[in-house]
């Protein structure tokens, strides 16, 4: 039965939506900045999956090129974000995201 099932792009989009929601909930629930970054990665992956699924559905390579650029931006984002986390944690270990209110006016 499952072998005969045709996987349309809709399946991938539904999976991407679920993954995005899980990432968003994680971002809101967790307070460790590192885990929050991981949740952002989850959301980016969900969007990548949707991009590739759309590209496949449209027969267009633009979706895959977009994913390529998202990968690069995600890498840059993680590098900068983790550098900030290291700089903060060096002053104050075990800090959580709610303590980082230095910039509050």
């Amino acid at each position, binding site marked *: 039965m499952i072998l005969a099932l045709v996987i*349309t792009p809709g*399946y*991938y989009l539904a*999976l991407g*939506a679920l*993954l995005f929601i899980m990432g968003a909930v994680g971002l809101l629930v967790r307070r460790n900045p590192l*885990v929050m970054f991981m949740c952002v*990665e989850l959301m980016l992956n969900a969007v990548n999956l949707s991009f590739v699924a759309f590209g496949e559905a449209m*027969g267009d390579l633009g979706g895959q090129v977009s994913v390529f650029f998202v990968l690069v931006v995600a890498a840059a984002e993680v590098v900068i974000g983790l550098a900030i986390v290291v700089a903060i944690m060096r002053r104050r270990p*075990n800090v959580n995201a709610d303590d980082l209110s230095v910039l509050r006016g």
Partner: protein
Amino acid sequence: MEAVVFFVAAAIVLAGALGVIISRNPVHAALSLVMTLFGVAVLFINLEAYFLAVVQVIVYAGAIVVLFLFVIMLVGVDKAEDVRAEPIVRQREFALLAGAGLLALAVIIGVAAGGEITGRAPGDLDIVRAFEDVDDIDGDGITDETIPPSQVLTDESSGERVVTRPNSDNIHQLGDALFTDYVFAFEITAILLTIAVVGAVVLARRPSGDLQDLPEFDPPGVLRVEPDPDDEVATDIDEEDLSAAEQDASVEAEEATEDATDAEATS
């Protein structure tokens, strides 16, 4: 077969995502993230995006997660998060509510689209059928693949369709697109990466001199005692370290301040 691969990979992806958001230990969360990323790579292969699948494994699982693990080990936060601490009242409930709202939105969109979520406008389906490879025009023995219309040439006189694909595999196509249509974005990406590297080095560099306390970092309600400048070393460390630090101070003042900084950082 595609369906089996899809459902197994989807289960792996969702289990990994659940692991990221519920594991208290950041190391476990990072390993669950690897699981999710591998699942997404499998789905990319299922979608015939072979190059992206490889890049996903190398860049995400190989570089980004390792970077996460490095930082976890470096700053030593591999302890369980205190779930009882709740600085924002009812944050978890609101977060779950927001997640339920997003889920409801996704379901509504899915229902409104009638299961046909493909990004095409309704009535646009015959265009796709036009370049569906129904009679194996590219001669590779596969008759149900989709060929982009830009690659199908139709002979005006005979009406015969010919597929022109000089470099027909995924990597060649992606490379062609990247260095022709998207070359400007590609070069901007190079600048972005350079800025990111420089920024990371500047941010992660240990600043010269003493680390100064940030007064705003103290939790509210804690009485702050201004430390005596001579007594700075003795605030957090015990007698032994203090005497050692003072000995160092008599030898070389600069070394002592460095010790104090280290002691403060480790305490």
